[in-house]
Each structure stands twice: as structure tokens, then as C-alpha cells.
């Protein structure tokens, strides 16, 4: 019988107690999330690796009363922000690059097979415009969008990650959607 899977927080406690294997398990569990997050911001695998090294070096500072995922994303975010400041690089991987990479790898479009080709094309164009509108947002707003819609986090977890309150994040999300709709509309009008 397999032992029940330990929670992230239990793994952190084990890591603090000197169990190195716990770190390997955490890396296994979160490497895809963290790599994706770092690629969004700095296109840099090194930052993902460094995030886990920081988890190790800062393990004693982890507050077991808090959730692990927002904490590690907060570390990744801070490392990416430092890197952006260092390189003066403010860039999110564009959807086009991701989508073309995916198409090359999987050999298929990522739309639902039930959609007609016309609808698929219209939706793809709409998303490409929305993606461009996303790039006009300020850094913090973009992060909130990434965490909420791409990483599918709750407002409460986002608040822990970006160092804000749940209320402020919810308010911010409403504002961002309003702003995006306005800019998205402007993109549509131009086209």
C-alpha cells in the first residue's frame, strides 16, 4: 500500500528537518508551474531553478500557517522582477510564439474540434488581439492576469503572491477587465 501523499506544507516541514528528498518532491510537483511562470516573464529557465534553490535557502522562513504555492510563486515573481529590472526587459512570451511552438509539437490547432473553421479563425484572431491588449497593461496588472487566468489561482492566493489584500486583488481584477475591454475594443477599431 502506498503511503498517502504528503501535503506541500508537510514536505516543507520535512525539508526543515533535514530531509532532502522532500525538496526533490516539491521540485517534481511544482517545476512545470514555476518554469511556465518564469518563461512568461523572462524566458529564462535559470530563474526557475533559482526559485527552488531559494526555497531551500529560505526554508526556515516559511510560515507553515500559509500555503506553499503562493509563497513559491512569490519567490519566483521577485526573482523575475529583479531580472527584469536588471535587464530592463519587460516582455511576456507572446501567444503567437507559444501557439506556433505548440502547433509544431502537437501538429494541431488548439481550438475545439466542434468549432467550424470560420469560428476557430475568428476566435484565434480575437485572442491574438486580446493578447496584444494584455501587453499594454502595466507589469503588476499583467501579473494578476497571469496568476488568475493562466495559473488559475484564487484572489486570496494571488494576494499572498503579489503582496496585496484579497479585496485589493478583486478590485484590481474588475478594473483590469474594464481596462482590457476598452483597449481590446480600441485594437478592434484600429483593425
Amino acid at each position: 500500500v502506498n503511503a498517502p501523499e504528503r501535503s506541500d506544507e508537510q514536505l516543507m516541514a520535512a525539508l526543515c528537518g533535514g530531509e532532502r528528498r522532500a525538496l526533490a518532491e516539491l521540485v517534481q510537483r511544482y517545476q512545470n508551474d514555476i518554469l511556465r511562470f518564469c518563461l512568461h516573464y523572462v524566458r529564462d529557465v535559470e530563474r526557475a531553478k533559482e526559485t527552488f534553490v531559494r526555497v531551500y535557502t529560505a526554508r526556515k522562513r516559511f510560515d507553515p500557517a500559509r500555503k506553499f504555492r503562493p509563497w513559491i510563486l512569490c519567490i519566483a515573481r521577485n526573482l523575475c522582477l529583479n531580472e527584469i529590472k536588471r535587464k530592463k526587459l519587460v516582455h511576456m512570451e507572446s501567444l503567437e510564439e507559444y501557439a506556433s511552438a505548440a502547433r509544431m509539437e502537437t501538429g494541431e490547432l488548439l481550438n475545439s474540434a466542434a468549432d467550424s473553421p470560420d469560428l476557430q479563425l475568428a476566435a484565434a484572431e480575437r485572442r491574438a488581439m486580446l493578447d496584444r491588449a494584455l501587453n499594454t497593461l502595466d507589469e503588476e496588472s499583467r501579473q494578476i492576469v497571469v496568476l488568475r487566468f493562466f495559473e488559475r489561482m484564487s484572489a486570496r492566493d494571488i494576494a499572498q503572491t503579489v503582496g496585496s489584500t484579497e479585496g485589493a486583488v478583486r478590485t484590481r481584477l474588475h478594473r483590469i477587465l474594464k481596462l482590457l475591454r476598452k483597449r481590446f475594443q480600441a485594437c478592434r477599431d484600429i483593425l
Partner: protein
Amino acid sequence: VTKLGKRECEELLDTYLAEDQAHAITRIEAALQEDDELRKEFGGLVEMCRDLEEIGRQRRAAAPPADLVGAVMAAVDGTRRTQAHKRSALRRLAWAAAAIAAVLLLSWFVFLRERTDSPDSAPRLAKPREPVAPTPESVEDAGSESVPAVRTARQMLAEAMKHLDEQTRARPSQQDQAVDERTGPRDFTDLTLQDVLEERQRAVADDRARGRLVRWASLRWDEARELATGPGISLDARIGSSRYLQGPMGEYVLTAAVTERPGDPYVRYGLADRLSEKAGAGTEAIAQYEQAAALDSGNSLPYYEIARERLEQNDVAAALEALSTAAGIDTAYAYSGEASRYQAEALVARGMDSAAAQLLAAVVAGTEEYLELTDLASELLDYGAELDQSGDAETALQVYDAVSRLGMQLVAGAAFSRERLAGIDMQRMALDVLEQLYPRLGLDPETLIPQTEDLVDNILYLRDFYNQLDVLFTEGPVEDAAFWASVANTIIESGDLALVESLGSGP
């Protein structure tokens, strides 16, 4: 399909945004199929949410698979080896240092004996600590393009902020704002005045304690909703709960409060804020901000909010008019006192001990307002940048100047340190962009120096203030409940800045 009203759709959208609940948006989509009006109002937003989800899904699918375990473990092993090496080196260094110290002590002893009869052997006073001086690092950091005088002023500013950050730990930092849930062993209703006081004392040296205070002073959405809709809850407590109710529920509570208290500018201002977050309600929000401004003529803040709404509506002329009206008022404030009073009522209604709730609301007063104020400044500066990018640098300058002025008005009018801190931060943000814009418009950046120097003074004032406040909380009479009740009352009624001054130890 259950037919939904507009309010229910707003609530569902809010739930979906806050908690990623797919069923909420599915229900809205079903309702939109049946109702043209709803489709017109929510169709675009819902489609955008779905598109964002799809973009996220595509990115997740397209991201390369990670295999970091080996690399991370190797790096960690390297870190451990380095640490072990450092520890060993430190031990060697410690022995060497001890040996050198022994030799020096011996030499000093011999030297003193030789000079015992010398007339120059009187002890000297220690040199007083320089309040703020630029360090070589900050000189390096300052922009090389700046003229020297501007550069020096900016260095002073950076140093002053560093002192404020490091010495007072008073800024709403990440930990301060980490309001997730009331974690920890303590039951909310068991919290005592003593607990709050001890946590505040710990907060002097521990940011996490400050975060816990904010958590204790917060309500979860479900708790706030229960207060807002429950029977027998006072209007004050309902208003207090509204700050934790985003979306339509918050709007509902505040609309009812405005009906009952039409002359209360705080409530009116709160309702305007809620409306400003709602798609398509900008004009309604402006009307409420105008009424708030009419009720409180000494506060310029509503006019800046109006300007933001107008800029969002692309009505630049009306925005500049609002900014011009704001410029004619000397002071601004964000009602942290009123918010704390209502917050304490809500905490008591939720079951917290009254004295604990009062002190808790007092010690975290201004935290939310700090965030709201700096958000407002960021948005105005963003609009300014948009104007600049579109070639209208003159109008951008007016918007940046306005943000800077709001900062000064807050410093002049705020009774709460966190509001004043927001004023300082927004002036710094504005100075950053003004310094870049001035040369392009043929203006002399040196004219910004007096403002920068004023800012340094204000930062130093605040730094001293926070030191005094920490002394009060660490050395005040711990057992004297009446004293702390009076402290809480003074903060809520007159502001924390007045508290230190009223105790006769103002900086």
C-alpha cells in the same frame, strides 16, 4: 435555465473572478442566451474571461516540460558545500581575530600606561550620527543623465526612504498585506486587548506580526456578507463589512447606507469607489464623487477620482477640469478614521471583544487606504504615460503634476501616517516621470529640487514619528486597559499622527 437578474450576474461574475469557479460563469453564459439586455451588458466581459482562460490553457499546453530536479539538487548541494566551507573559514577567522585582538589589547594597555600623564588624554564625545547622507552605492544608483544637483537631491531622497523602510518597518510591506485568512491557533472571538497589544509590540521587529494584525482585523467575504444581510446588525457594522464585499453586494450595502446617511461623505465616497469598479458605471460613479466632494469641501481627493473616471472615458478636457478644481484645494485625505470606526463596529458585531476590536482597527488604520491611494496615483500616471506616448506631452505633464500635487495635499491634510506615506510615495512616483519629461519639454529639472528636499524632510518626520510610535507601544503601561482604550480612541478619532503629538512627544 434559471433566469438571472443583472445583480445576480454581477455577483456570479465576482465569485468567478475571486475563486475561479467555472460553474459561476457557465450559469451567466446560460442566462445570456435567454436575455438580450444581459448579453449586451455582460457578453463582452464573459467572452473576454473565456478567451483569457483559453490563452492560459494554450500557454500551459505549449510550455516545454520541465526537468529541474537534478539541476536543483546539484545547486543545493553546491550551496551546502559553500556554507560548510564558509563556516569553517569563519571559525579560522574567529581564531585569528581573537589572537589579533589580544595583541591589540596588550599594545593599547602599554600605550595607555605611557600616556597616563599626557594633557591630551581627555575623552572625546562621540560624533553625532548624521541623519541622512548619500552612500557610495546610492551615488552609483542615481541616474547618470541627471544634473548633479538633481542627482544629489535624488540620492538624499533614496537614502531617506531607505532609513524609513529599514528603521520603522512602517510601510505596508508584502507581509503587511498578506491578508489571506485568519490563520494560527487563535480563535477570532477569543482575541483580547492584551493579544493585540503583544502582537503590536512584536510588529516593531517582525513584519509577520504586522501581517497577522491586518489578518485579525479583516473579515472573510462570507463573514462580511453575513453581517451585511443578517438581522439586527447595526448600520455602522454593515458599513464596516462593506469594505470586504467587492462587487454588487458591497454596492448594495453602501447604496442602502447612502439612503440612510445622505450627508456622510465617507459612505458616499465608498459607494462611488464601488461604482467606479463596475463596467459601464463611470458616470454614476462621477455623480457620487461629486456629491462626496460637495459634502466635504476641504478634501480634493474626489476630484482626482473624477479625473481618473474622465480619463477612462477618454474625456481629457473634463479630466483636466477636475484636476484644476482639485488644485484649488489645499488638503486631501482618504477617511481612514471613519473606515476604522466602522471596521471596529463590524469586528464587534462579528463577536470580537470591543476593546480588542478598537485597538486592532486603530493599529491597522490606513492600510487599505494606502493601497487605494497608491493605486489611484499609478492609474493617473499610466494615463499620463499614454498621453505622452500619443504625442501630447503637455497634457501628460499636467497629469503628472496633478499626482505630485495630490501627494502634497495628502501630506498636508492626512491625519493618518499611512495616508501621508501614500502622499510621499506618489510624489516620488511623479518625480520619477517628471524628471524624465522635463528635459524633453525644455524645462529645467533643477526646479524639482525644492520639492525633492521637502519630501526628504517629510520622510524624516515620518521616520521619527514611527520610532516614537514604536516606543509608545513597547514601553507603554501594558496592564493599563484604560490607557490603551484612550490610545485607540485618539487614533480613530484624530489620527495616529495626532496621537504622538497629544502625548507631548511629537517629533
